């Protein structure tokens, strides 16, 4: 089975643009609205959606996404709920790649084997477990490979070149380069540094490289689009959802804006 993520990136390359990867939290503010948001995002040009799996202790998240996790948990959101949500989303959208992004403890609550069975049923495309470096990931790596679910891995500004090479070799789908030392929603992105690091990563891997953690608006997206194959935008969407009001309209216009910057 060809990875949908791979296919999307090669189409985007042919169209000579960059991938827009958007992040929201599953079940924030509730299941039905999450699905509506996903549909609107796709309509306005999102290529891949990272669906955050809410966790009580999201250590790598800034305040915006922490609040998103809290809102979702208050509504009873969970990993199983995210699979149910994805199945509903799949009724109308079989094509858009979906990645579950979250923390080890919630993923392990199902166990690697059961998780992958669910992943196949819901046509999940990839997983990104924030606190699962390659050294700690044997079960999920083995089970994911069996069923063709991509394992997206993080590379940070602090990662040495030799370690980056090792991480790339155990990664599939795309490589996620964390553009800043910090948590999600940080604002001190240095485009020159990112450029240097990404070109080094190109020597380790042929996988597409997406950049995230410091991309919050059109200007930061545009500052890195030339070096990357895609950018990940999360906190700004989770903030819009938190604000309330006409969420769908706000999300649509933000997605459109970012998508235009990247085309």
């Amino acid at each position, binding site marked *: 089975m060809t990875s949908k993520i791979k296919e999307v990136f090669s189409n985007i390359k042919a169209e000579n643009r960059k991938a827009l990867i958007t992040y929201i939290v599953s079940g924030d503010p509730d299941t039905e609205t999450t699905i509506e948001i996903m549909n609107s995002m796709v309509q306005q040009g999102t290529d891949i959606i990272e669906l955050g799996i809410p*966790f*009580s202790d999201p*250590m790598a998240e800034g305040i915006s996404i922490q609040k998103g996790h809290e809102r979702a948990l208050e509504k009873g959101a969970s990993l199983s709920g995210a699979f149910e949500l994805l199945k509903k989303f799949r009724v109308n959208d079989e094509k858009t790649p979906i990645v579950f992004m979250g923390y*080890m403890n919630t993923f392990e609550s199902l166990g690697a084997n059961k998780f992958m069975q669910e992943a196949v049923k819901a046509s999940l495309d990839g997983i990104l477990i924030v606190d699962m*470096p390659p050294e700690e990931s044997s079960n999920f790596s083995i089970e994911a490979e069996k069923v063709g679910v991509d394992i997206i891995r*993080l590379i*940070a500004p602090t990662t040495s070149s030799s370690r980056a090479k090792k991480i790339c070799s155990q990664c599939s789908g795309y490589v996620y380069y964390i553009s800043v030392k910090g*948590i999600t929603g940080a604002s001190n992105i240095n485009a020159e540094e990112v450029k240097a690091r990404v070109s080094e990563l190109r020597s380790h891997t042929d996988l597409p490289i997406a950049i995230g953690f410091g991309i919050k608006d059109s200007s930061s997206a545009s500052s890195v689009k030339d070096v990357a194959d895609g950018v990940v935008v999360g906190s700004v969407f989770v903030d819009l959802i938190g604000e309330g009001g006409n969420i769908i309209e706000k999300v649509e216009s933000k997605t459109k804006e970012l998508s235009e910057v990247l085309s």
Partner: protein
Amino acid sequence: MSEELMPDKNGRFGIYGGRYVAETLVPALEELSEQYELIKKDDKFLKEFKADLKDYVGRPSPLYFAKRWTELLGGAKIYLKREDLNHTGAHKINNTVGQILLAKHMGKKRIIAETGAGQHGVATASVAARHGLECIVFMGEEDIQRQSLNVFRIKLLGAKVVGVNSGTSTLKDAMNEAMRDWVTNVDDTYYIIGSVAGPHPYPQIVRDFNAVVGEEVLEQSKAVIGKDPDMLVACVGGGSNAMGLFYPFIEKKNVRLVGVEAGGLGLSTGKHAAPLNDGKEGVLHGMRTYLMQDDAGQVIETHSVSAGLDYPGVGPEHAWLKDIGRAEYESADDEEALDAFKELTRVEGIMPALETAHGIAYVKKIAPTMSEDQSIVVNVSGRGDKDINTVASIEGIEL
């Protein structure tokens, strides 16, 4: 594998421990491991560490025979390891004295720490003041309320206290926030974790720096008891005072090791902080260990009268010692701890911290079942001055 060689090269104690962190921190933890392996064999460092333990902390702490308490309980002889007499009032200072030297050796300029009861915050702020380093202490808002005295002490010592409002506003959330700060300022910042918890190599570092407690007991027992004690008892939150006491005794199979967790309102109510008694395997704060969690893998709110034990996880080495059967883990509830707090205060004139009182409560139960020629050493991990407001308010007294 011999427990002495734990953790293994991957930072694991059996299946527990490890390094479950976002990639940004992995290189920082690798560097910390390398530097720690070097420094722990360095004569200059060891000399400085020992001198600080003696002259700054005031070690060795006495092993004191609690004669009246022993008579009252009528059973095993009870000895108190007086960590409450240390500078800053608890065992927490042992670890911070060591880690600040490691931080300086690594050229770090900024110190961060999390704290629950505030004892680790005070201990960290003290050594940071002494070495002239900037210090930021993360503390849950709920703990700031119930440990206001320690908050003020930390501020007097020149450190900044950052209140944490997320999650349950207690120790685990303070630790999340400290991790977030560290990941952001990883170049110039050293994170002094206060318990035998967190990602490798912290459980090892904090254990080693606290092992002086057990090493002293090993020596002192010869003179004070005349033989090895039959049982060691210590309270367990994250588990640093217990690990420090137990570690040098692990190969001495004739000595029973008993850790006492916070039973809160009772194990059956679910409102407690006893993951080794009533939790299951999981991953939090960079380590695999026993966790208080629900079926969906969400960490659940804990409850304990003592802020220092109010933590949903536990050091991975304790998880391992439990599984291999080398240590036993019991619990004492809020009420038992408060009774023990009062009893030790009145009978021996020693006011233990509420954390410590959980260990004292277990001794109250077990000592009468043992014979007079047996002996128990209980770690009085901290003094109770900081808890006076808590105890008063439980009794409806306004100070």
